[in-house]
């Protein structure tokens, strides 16, 4: 079977309408650079495949609505349901497994051929034409991504500590204010440089996430190799063993799962509020007793009874 598209084939097709001009291209800039996405289209001659909905899969190149996958015998009709029809016809797609292994499925060997690299494009029944196909740049970007030279991230360091301190503790207290920082760098053009993502999120999880916060990227100087992301977080008032996790999974980039386990303890007996408004009467009672006792002692020492009254008492 081949991918057939009677509406989108190049002029130099051999009559089977299989040398098609791919219509759909991903706009994921982790896999393809902007030049390739917006540049001349890609020529393809080969077989189709279809992909499911697993988020590990990314579609990179797909056909138009009028394409389908079938045998190319001329005097026959399509009478069985083709494997895939329309924009579901995938020409190039990629899988990044959970440990960041990358596999790219390309249904055409000729896509990588010198002939296709140098071929101009002229769509039949259309004025659309390009002097050179986008195959060469597309192949460069695709192979870079597949061989882990593009869109690769790593965590260079991670730190958490209480506000105004520097020590990374293993036990925090409920309602503590902490500062969490993580540094992520990206491999671009054969060297590590600071990553530019803006949606890295921090999670505090104990079976379910209690807190999820987007970290703010800090500005960096050009020679720094990793970008620091920081967040100020108030720990929840639930105690237990928590995991501080940065789980960054985006299509096209390698997956980052950085976690550190931390215990959160409840208040100690002397960390509760010290003076309670409901206890004011008791405070005044005790103070009143003390003052009364001291006053009475002074009076007892230095009191001189009125002589009239004393005489009265004695008589």
């Amino acid at each position, binding site marked *: 079977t081949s991918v057939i598209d009677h509406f989108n084939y190049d002029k130099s097709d051999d009559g089977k309408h299989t040398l098609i001009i791919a219509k759909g291209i991903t706009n994921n800039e982790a896999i393809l650079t902007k030049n390739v996405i917006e540049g001349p289209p890609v020529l393809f001659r080969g077989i189709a495949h279809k992909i499911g909905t697993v988020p590990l899969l990314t579609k990179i190149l797909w056909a138009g609505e009028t394409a389908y996958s079938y045998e190319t015998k001329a005097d026959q009709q399509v009478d069985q349901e083709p494997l895939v029809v329309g924009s579901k016809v995938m020409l190039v797609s990629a899988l990044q497994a959970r440990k960041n292994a990358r596999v790219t499925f390309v249904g055409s060997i000729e896509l990588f051929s010198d002939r296709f690299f140098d071929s101009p494009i002229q769509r039949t029944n259309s004025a659309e034409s390009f002097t050179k196909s986008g195959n060469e740049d597309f192949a460069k970007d695709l192979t870079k991504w597949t061989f882990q030279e593009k869109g690769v991230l790593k965590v260079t360091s991670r730190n958490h500590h209480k506000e105004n301190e520097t020590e990374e503790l293993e036990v925090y207290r409920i309602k503590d204010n902490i500062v969490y920082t993580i540094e992520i760098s990206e491999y671009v053009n054969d060297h590590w440089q600071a990553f530019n993502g803006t949606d890295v999120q921090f999670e505090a999880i104990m079976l379910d996430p209690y807190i999820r916060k987007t970290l703010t990227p800090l500005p960096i100087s050009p020679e720094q190799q990793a970008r620091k992301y920081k967040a100020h977080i108030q720990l929840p008032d639930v105690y237990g063993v928590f995991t501080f996790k940065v789980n960054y*999974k985006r299509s096209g980039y390698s997956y980052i799962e950085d976690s550190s386990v931390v215990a959160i303890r409840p208040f100690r007996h002397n960390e509760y509020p010290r003076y309670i408004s409901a206890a004011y009467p008791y405070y005044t009672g005790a103070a009143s007793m003390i003052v009364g006792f001291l006053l009475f002692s002074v009076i007892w020492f230095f009191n001189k009874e009125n002589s009239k009254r004393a005489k009265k008492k004695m008589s």
Partner: protein
Amino acid sequence: KFTSWRAFLLALLTLALVQAEGFVLSDVKIAVTTSESVRKLYESIPYPSSFDKPIQLTSGDDFKMIFVVTDKQTQKGVQPHQAFLTLTSEENGNQIPIIVRVRENGKAKVELDMKSAPNELLSSPGNHSLDLIIGAFSHNDPLKYHVGTLEVDVPIQSSGPSPVVYGPKPEIHHIFRPDEKLPPIWLSYSFMAIILIPWLFLIGAWAYIGVNVSLLANAPESALMSLIFLGTLLGIEILFYNYWTHLNIFQTLTWLAGLSIVAFITGQKALSGVQKWRSMGLR
């Protein structure tokens, strides 16, 4: 001369016709029958314009369409390689193809029975664009004909868990338990006042019986010991206040040990002084 010119033109035209051109549809008719075999709709669509009213389909309906495909030049029926009737959902762009089998004379009949429709269609209610795509290897001008709009009226099903997509998740802000609610502050203040009321009685009663500190004012010499003793008592009370605010039991007991020795010694001397005053008749 004229005939050879015509012959030459004819030859040119035949050369140009190596690749056949396009398709023409004719006799396009649609019909919708309900599940009780009541014919709801029967229309003939004037190709190349589309059917302007939306075609309504509910569950149990049966949609049928017939047409004839002919070659534009030869006007003979053809069997194109690709003859698909596609339903494209206007909401989510989902495309559902239906394969049309075209007979040798170009006549074709296609049926969409909602009773046995694909699940994709049954779970996407709303408007669908109905298009007929005709293509073949031998023709270089394929046909995409917009037949009309299908209004699919099926109950909205909760289509199960939606597929996971990697992306930022919604932020979770922990809601802290509100502080313990205490009784209102005016209640505390009023009880404070109630506790302080006995002082009025005490001061009143003392004033009535004529309490004074005259012996201090007249200052016999041994008043000094009494004063020191009273100062020690004051010190012990201040120690207790500090214990209440910031000291711990060990520091308190340390201070208390020292202060109580001083209190004991000065207390004895003070009391012997008071005894002396008594014997002197001052008390």
